[in-house]
């Protein structure tokens, strides 16, 4: 076998040593200025410019930007960062490059909406992102669900949440769950009529036993909420007229012409406390009611299937 020449040996040695030395120097440089590698920079922020620069290969660029967004969020989340300045622009660029990349809306909104350190604390940007997604993919019911979820969980805007779930429930092949959620949100928002309509529709149209059962429970709870509100108004009216609280539910029913002893959907008469509060006899039988519960009572809130 031919022996390697001196030049080969020297050149190979220099190559290996130089490579190792350059890596070492670079590592030391990173240690001297750690922020330089940790803080990412978005040199191009305009989705349109990036789209032009991608020469039509938008799909691949979208995948790259989505991966970058995931990496950016994951890195900062791992270190419980309090700011996620680049997250929204990264997601917006991703969505602009590939408007049909559903995962960017679904997961992106869950990165953007929650407050730091669990998210960027930008629910409004999350809403704008999903609204753009809905505009581009109007037949995707999941996006409506995600949008309603942000309204409900982050903004506690039950009315908007209900509207969004309701919009989504009209999308062809939408999951029946959306209708269930729409009704639930409407109930939380105090819009009994809307909620009753949605829950009744859910009850009548669903093929799923669990959803049907759930709808029935919500309809019962709606009736209780409305009854209690009505009875509470009667107590107020009685107090204004007589200057005292009614001593019993029977006295209230008689004085306010309620047409007999008011009973809950299970046939149990409503209770009237000495403080003039109207309550149900068995709160555990109505897991979804909002009114008529004893102070401090926490219902066993069953998750909707």
């Amino acid at each position: 076998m031919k022996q390697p020449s001196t030049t080969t040996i020297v050149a190979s040695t220099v190559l290996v040593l130089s490579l190792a030395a350059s890596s070492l120097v670079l590592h030391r440089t990173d240690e001297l200025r750690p922020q330089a590698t940790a803080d990412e920079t978005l040199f191009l922020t305009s989705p349109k410019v990036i789209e032009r620069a991608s020469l039509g290969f938008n799909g691949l660029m979208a995948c790259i930007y989505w991966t970058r967004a995931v990496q950016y969020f994951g890195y900062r989340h791992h270190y419980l960062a309090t700011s996620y300045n680049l997250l929204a622009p990264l997601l917006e660029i991703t969505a602009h490059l590939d408007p049909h990349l559903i995962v960017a809306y679904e997961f992106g909104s869950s990165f953007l909406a929650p407050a730091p350190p669990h998210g960027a604390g930008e629910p409004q940007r999350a809403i704008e992102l999903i609204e753009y997604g809905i505009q581009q993919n109007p037949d995707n019911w999941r996006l409506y669900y995600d949008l309603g979820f942000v309204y409900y969980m982050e903004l506690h805007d039950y009315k908007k949440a209900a509207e969004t779930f309701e919009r989504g429930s009209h999308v062809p092949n939408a999951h029946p769950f959306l209708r269930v959620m729409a009704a639930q949100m409407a109930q939380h928002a105090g819009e009994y009529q809307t909620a009753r309509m949605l829950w009744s529709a859910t009850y009548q149209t669903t093929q799923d036993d669990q959803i049907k059962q759930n709808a029935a429970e919500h309809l019962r709870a709606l009736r209780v909420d409305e009854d209690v509100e009505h009875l509470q108004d009667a107590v107020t009216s009685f107090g204004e007229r007589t200057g005292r609280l009614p001593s019993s539910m029977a006295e209230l029913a008689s004085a306010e012409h309620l047409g007999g002893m008011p009973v809950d959907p299970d046939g149990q008469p409503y209770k009237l406390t000495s403080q003039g509060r109207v309550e149900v006899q068995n709160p555990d039988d109505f897991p979804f009611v909002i009114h008529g519960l004893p102070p401090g009572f926490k219902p066993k809130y069953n998750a909707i299937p």
Partner: protein
Amino acid sequence: MKTRIAYIASNTFREAVRDRVLYNLIAFALLLSGAAILVGQISIEIEKLVVINLGLTAVSLFGVVIAIFIGIGLVSKEIEKKTLYTVLSHPVRRWEFIVGKFFGLAGTLVVNTFFMAIGVFVALFYVAHTFVRADALIFVALYFIVLEFLIICSLALLFSSFSSPLLSAVFAFSLFVIGSFAEDLRNFAGMAHGISRWLATGAAYLVPNFSAFNVITSIAHQQPIAGQIILHNTLYALFYAAMAISGAVLIFDRRDLK
């Protein structure tokens, strides 16, 4: 005539293979297998999308680079090496030489694309563990990419017929970039007035419209491509390539080779 064109085409193909053009397949295989394995670990729910997007984009870009860098040397190299005189001293017409060169380069790219397509499907099977009916749409994207190559080959050959390799590369690559913005040019023409409108409209129709061939993103989302579009793109590519080759033939036929 047919035999002479086929002979020049097969020689062009052989020359490209001898020039180790197909080595790009190794880089392609490494890129795709690396992406297929790594993306699942660094991203969320886009493994299949990445394989399709990256695979088809790589097929397209590798092919464009090959088409430009081989196409620009097809004529000038023959003149430089003086092999052109040997060829033309035989009963070979100049237009046959140009057409043969075009088919040789196009054939090289088709073979290259075929092997890359196998790579795309292997990577796809690796990440998805199965094929679905919609995966067949990838063939449409590959077909459009091949049509795109036909146009680029013809343009590279056109520039090669009268210009130096360096300038030909610049011209061909510039046209590829401009062609990718053809839709924007058309939009600009729609907004302009007077002479600008005429100039912009003329330019929009003169430059190749590559954006029409790029359906990768749609295919990745399993959106079907209408048969009419396939037909129109086929006709457009054939007409445009024929136009550019005719230009190359006209120029080369009048060129003083002394």
